[in-house]
């Protein structure tokens, strides 16, 4: 899994790629919570276009990030979910609690 960060629209975009599984979800969790809790970035965008796989530990990290962002009044925004990620979101019935957009343009203008 790879994580790249870039600045945009008063926030940070984290471009995630590869597999977010038990081996790699700790790295995503660290990057996500670093942006939210330490840097207190007002908007954190997660670009999931190139995520091939996500497991329950990856979903748990997203939920943790969402809770942390709500605690400090910031926003966690997900976009460009692959079929695999979308299926897992539906299975966990979490798609309604996250802010999810079809693409980067819609996410940035939200």
């Amino acid at each position, binding site marked *: 899994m790879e994580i790249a960060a870039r600045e945009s629209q008063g926030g940070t975009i984290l471009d995630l790629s590869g597999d977010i599984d038990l081996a790699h979800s700790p790295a995503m969790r660290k990057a996500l919570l670093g942006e939210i809790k330490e840097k207190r970035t007002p908007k954190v965008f997660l670009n999931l276009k190139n995520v091939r796989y996500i497991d329950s530990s990856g979903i748990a990290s997203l939920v943790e990030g969402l809770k942390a962002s709500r605690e400090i009044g910031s926003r966690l925004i997900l976009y460009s979910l692959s079929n695999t990620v979308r*299926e*897992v979101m539906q299975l966990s019935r979490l798609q309604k609690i996250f802010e999810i957009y079809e693409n980067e343009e819609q996410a940035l203008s939200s």
Partner: protein
Amino acid sequence: MKSSNGKGRKAYKQFHADLLLKLEMRSNPEALSLVRATLERAAEALNFHSVERRAIVRSVDEALANVMRHAYEGKSGLPIVVTFRRLYGQNPQACEGIEVLLEDEGVAVNPSKLKGRPLEDIRPGGLGLHFIRQSMDEVEFSRKHGKNQLRMVKYLAIPKTESGSQGE
């Protein structure tokens, strides 16, 4: 502990099982991607649809992660055996499903902790078992000879012969 997701059309039927693949691995999370890739190809060879393939891969991956995190308490280098079997009925050419058996030598799993958590309770953790139950047709846990065994079965929606035509 045994559960079925209600696809009862197969429950009465007797199946034969051919060994497809047996993996001896260690409790290293880095190995999970190898198992996923191998299983994806195996399920494809058995003519599972892409949605079913992802369900099988997701279930086995989550089950292995549970073994590593809970039965082996995060310790790496400990043995796990994964056996894949092809299921068929009266016609040996018509694959009807896949059976996956996971065995580990970790601490005994308390069946009362195999319930997962209510999805309404939004918090990290506890989703893996839910994914497995939602994705597989049969899930059965047992403890035998000092080993945890998890048996999972996924049936093909439409049985197909190896040449790709519809089977029995």
